[in-house]
């Protein structure tokens, strides 16, 4: 009993972790299922069919590639606009700073469905045809705030004297920015980019309202929940999960090596 009381936090924490990982395990297991009928919700028997032919479902891989492109462009757009805003907010004192801070905070403090619906009324009123471009515009809009927050956090902890020093050593503004400012801000920018990519790739609600007949990957999954879920969806889900874990592990190894060489 004493052991239990002492380790209560650990046990509760691990139970939460299990709750969080459980669906991923189910997705992984069911990627090897051979379903009876259209829906892949109950276990029938083991099969590698879906893994052998991941793009064997009509339109699925098209939607996947569309989502990847959208996420890439949204990341680029949000990153450029967001980093500029973050630098302006941290490095300069000017009027309207408070108002601008609120404008950036508000998209994060609003239910997604409200933004999605209001954006749709804009496009409808303007007579803009829904499709790739409207989705891209929407994704850049909602990723922007998150990028600003991530980059701001990093730039704020940055010592401006480093740039002063670079300038004193006769580095031009461009040189200072590229050789000093950017490398130091890089982790914040990378975090913002990762966040924007993940948010855009996974977004369903805003996309659903503003995509018209364009089908992104989350929309394909949504549709399949009504029409019948192909096992290939689980294959893609598993592959994404494994890829992400591998990327993080690789990143960890690289940083550890760097630390070792830095201290050696």
């Amino acid at each position: 009993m004493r052991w239990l009381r002492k380790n209560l936090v650990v046990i509760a924490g691990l139970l939460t972790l299990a709750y969080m990982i459980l669906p991923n395990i189910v997705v992984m297991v069911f990627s090897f299922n051979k379903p009876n009928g259209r829906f892949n919700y109950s276990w029938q028997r083991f099969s590698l069919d879906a893994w052998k032919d991941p793009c064997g479902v009509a339109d699925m891989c098209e939607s996947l590639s569309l989502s990847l492109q959208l996420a890439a462009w949204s990341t680029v757009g949000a990153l450029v606009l967001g980093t500029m805003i973050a630098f302006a907010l941290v490095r300069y004192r000017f009027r309207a700073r408070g108002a601008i801070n609120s404008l950036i905070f508000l998209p994060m403090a609003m239910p997604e469905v409200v933004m999605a619906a209001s954006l749709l009324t804009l496009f409808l009123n303007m007579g803009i045809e829904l499709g790739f471009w409207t989705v891209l515009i929407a994704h850049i809009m909602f990723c922007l705030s998150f990028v600003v927050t991530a980059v701001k956090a990093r730039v704020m902890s940055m010592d401006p004297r480093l740039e002063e020093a670079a300038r004193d050593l006769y580095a031009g503004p461009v040189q200072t920015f590229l050789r000093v400012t950017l490398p130091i801000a890089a982790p914040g920018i990378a975090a913002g980019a990762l966040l924007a990519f993940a948010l855009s790739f996974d977004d369903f609600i805003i996309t659903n309202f503003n995509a018209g007949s364009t089908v992104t990957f989350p929309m394909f999954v949504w549709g399949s929940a009504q029409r019948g879920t192909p096992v290939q969806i689980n294959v893609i889900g598993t592959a994404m999960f494994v890829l992400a874990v591998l990327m993080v592990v690789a990143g960890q190894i690289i940083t550890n090596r760097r630390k070792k060489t830095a201290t050696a």
Partner: protein
Amino acid sequence: MSTPTLTKEAPQPVAEPVLRKPSARKRLVPYWLLLPGIIWLLVFFALPLVYQASTSVQTGSLEQGFQVTWHFQTYWDAFTEYWPQFVRSLLYAGTATLLCLLLGYPLAYLIAFKAGRWRNLLLVLVIAPFFTSFLIRTLAWKTILADDSLVVDVLNALHVLDVTSWLGWTEGERVLATPMAVVCGLTYNFLPFMILPLYTSLERIDGRLHEAAQDLYATPATTFRKVTFPLSMPGVVSGTLLTFIPASGDYVNAELLGSTDTKMVGNVIQSQFLRVLDYPTAAALSFILMAIVLVMVTVYIRRAGTEDLV
């Protein structure tokens, strides 16, 4: 990976930039930096809200077109017709937020103070599920909570379902298509948004404060109540906001895991906008939701009293 916390200022001391005499051109630099992004937000975030406001006071039909007639009645009609969905949304989102806090706190605490060399691995395990599309993961709950699944059998054997059915959270021996399934899905979906801010604020706490509390003969429980928890308040506040706000507008969980009796206001807005094409009602509903959320958030931030929030 940095966390999407809502806290405004990091506590690190910042050396103020040494100000040189600004020329007129230099003084314009921040405005040029801000311009593109702010225009984007004004045109695609603020302006749409204006359009939506105008849509909500229009009358007409899709065939004949809509005109602004300042017909505020739509708001009242929408609210009286759909108030059960509003109540349900707030109830479900509130319950899910509370559950996220109860489930997320131990894990965040574990990662921040007890994980040691496992810390990075645990963080990866918290973030990694993000990379499997959340719709796929939500669909997996259909398997987990299916009628003859292990989870439901166990809950049934432990007579948990008797209690929850009596409370109206489940129906008989079913979990899927009940309020409990929807809340379970919401809790699951937004847990990382609770854990990451909690973790960041816990991690910032100086370990020596715990030692000091112990030296002053505080029990672990007292230490938690008087030291750890108050210091983690910024994380609690931003975590609950990051969970409650999106959960209140969500319609994915209610659609995939619920039934017609568990529809939330997001489901109504979605169907009014995309299926019924009754734009004024849909716009009014989404404005009421926005107003409710903003008022609740403002009151909550005042009450919680964290100054470092926007």
